[in-house]
């Protein structure tokens, strides 16, 4: 029978984990909402950002968080370019399918380049404060996890503000809800879609950096993430950022708590179980409300 302390610790960790997942999944669901694109390469970009953060620290001696100064705008630009130059060229009739294959190809490409540039050796950031932790009502929480959560919270809050308050955000939400209507009121949906993609990849830059603080990274790590992330966005409702956040918190918590009885590896199956349950019971997701799309 696990101790209350252990459960509480897992609970807190689950919270922190859920927050991080929420950030990682936000971009993924955003792409789908804007363009009905399943961006399989999102997790590959996460790992790319993680590698860049590691490289900044290991080779340049700078704190990995500072790598975001470069990676965030860089990834934004890449996102815009990806959408405008590649995805926009796909035929509308088979967009979803072809975008899957195309982004899959990009993911494989990124993995290959990462492996070539950094070799397959596993990397881990060795931070001065990397092993520090502090206590909270008996639970030991690693400082890096807290920083990662903090990053996620700030990034998500920024995303929220952008979507709710800025002109771009309004245009983006209009495009997500009804592309034709958005065009009719003068929104350049193509441009907006490009910026939306940029936003999504920018969150990947932040998310990847957050990941790098506490994870051992290697080129094929992105496969480890794309499954759970896709499960999260399906459970949350494809296209809904708040839905993804809610699902992320729920599943992150579940994973953390299930690690006690089931161990780390088997606890991961919770994502897939949730995915199949969603598809069987409510394919449009549980938390997305009217925003959620069905495939």
């Amino acid at each position: 029978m696990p101790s209350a302390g252990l459960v509480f610790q897992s609970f807190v960790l689950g919270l922190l984990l859920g927050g991080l997942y929420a950030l990682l999944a936000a971009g993924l669901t955003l792409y789908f909402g804007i363009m009905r694109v399943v961006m399989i390469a999102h997790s590959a970009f996460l790992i790319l950002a993680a590698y860049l953060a590691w490289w900044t620290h290991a080779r340049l001696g700078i704190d990995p968080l500072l790598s975001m100064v470069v990676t965030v705008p860089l990834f934004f630009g890449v996102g815009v370019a990806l959408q405008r130059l590649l995805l926009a060229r796909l035929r509308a009739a088979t967009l979803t399918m072809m975008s899957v294959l195309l982004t899959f190809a990009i993911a494989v490409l990124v993995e290959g380049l990462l492996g070539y540039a950094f070799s397959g050796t596993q990397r881990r950031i060795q931070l001065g404060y990397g092993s520090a932790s502090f206590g909270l009502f008996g639970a030991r929480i690693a400082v890096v996890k807290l920083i990662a959560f903090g990053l996620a919270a700030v990034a998500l809050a920024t995303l929220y503000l952008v979507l709710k308050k800025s002109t771009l955000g309004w245009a983006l939400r209009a495009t997500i809800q009804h592309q034709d209507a958005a065009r009719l009121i003068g929104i350049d949906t193509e441009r907006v879609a490009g910026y939306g993609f940029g936003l999504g990849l920018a969150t990947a830059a932040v998310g990847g950096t957050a990941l790098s603080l506490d994870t051992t990274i290697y080129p094929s790590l992105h496969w480890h993430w794309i499954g759970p992330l896709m499960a999260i966005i399906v459970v949350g409702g494809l296209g809904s950022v708040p839905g993804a956040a809610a699902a992320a918190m729920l599943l992150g918590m579940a994973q953390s708590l299930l690690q006690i009885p089931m161990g780390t590896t088997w606890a991961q199956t919770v994502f897939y179980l949730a995915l199949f349950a969603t598809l069987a019971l409510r394919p449009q997701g549980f938390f997305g409300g009217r925003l959620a799309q069905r495939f």
Partner: protein
Amino acid sequence: MRLAGLALLAVAVLSFPSMAPNPYILSTGVVVINYAVLATSWNFVGGFTGYISLGHGALAGLGGYGTALLVTRAGLPSFVALAVAGALVAALAVPIGFAALRVRGASFVIVSIALVLIMLLVFQSWASFTGGSRGLVVPRPFPGMLRPEHHRVFYFLFAGLLGLALLAWWLIDRSRFGLGLKAIREDEDKAEALGTPTFAYKLVVFVVSAAFTGLAGGLYALWFGDLDPVFQFSILTGSYMVLMALLGGVRHLFGPLLGALVVGIALEYFKAEFGNTPLHLVATGLLLGLVVMFMPDGVLPALGALARRVLRPPAQISIRDVTAAELAQRQPGGVR
């Protein structure tokens, strides 16, 4: 004319082993023909229904591990194990299909990817049963046989399986069942409104696809002799299948075979040239990306269209009314 081409193809395929200069080339041939079977098996689902599965690697892996475990744990003779494993994969495909085929488009792709990832997780974690990451050694079905002979025999076995898969594909292609599947590909709801039992159709073709894929995986296990979850349940394998089928043309019988030839040979060449560096991943990604962007119907159809435009005067390929008599003349079995 067609039969002659077919005979030529058969001869070419069957005479390869005798023409291979060394056992290494011969083993490459086995790998390529394995790809051909996998790609053709995938194309039952991808080509007929239009559902893109990135998870067929899971079915191949199940066939491989199924065969291996039946031989090592249950003591079945190799080829009996193969047959049973194939049947098991087909049986498993029913509940899998039930879950996966309820959704379409992007969700289906997501489910198919999730399938591979789950299998990988399970087979890596359940080390006591499957050998986990240490791998699983499969005893050779013909112990004492020398390497080259071993490769030869399996080459022909794979060729036989390929022949069966091609035959099955051809049968479905020209059948009413096949027409119903193609209708599903064009407009699933309309097909259903017209009276086609779409779910049942999708499930049946999925099971057929799974059976062939599982058999290919099992045969590979018997040939290669050493299984590792990371390679057996690989999304990459699944993506190769898709790439090969797309490249060659999903609406054509020999499309996946052609794609397998091109991609398979290129892959082995890259591996030989660049060692086992990740550059072959770069090449795969680039190739898949190029095919999706510029030749989504496949190389075969693209080349065919090009050839038609070059070889025949434009007047003949414009939209033209065809009389019933001309139609009967032109479409004896029909393609598409």
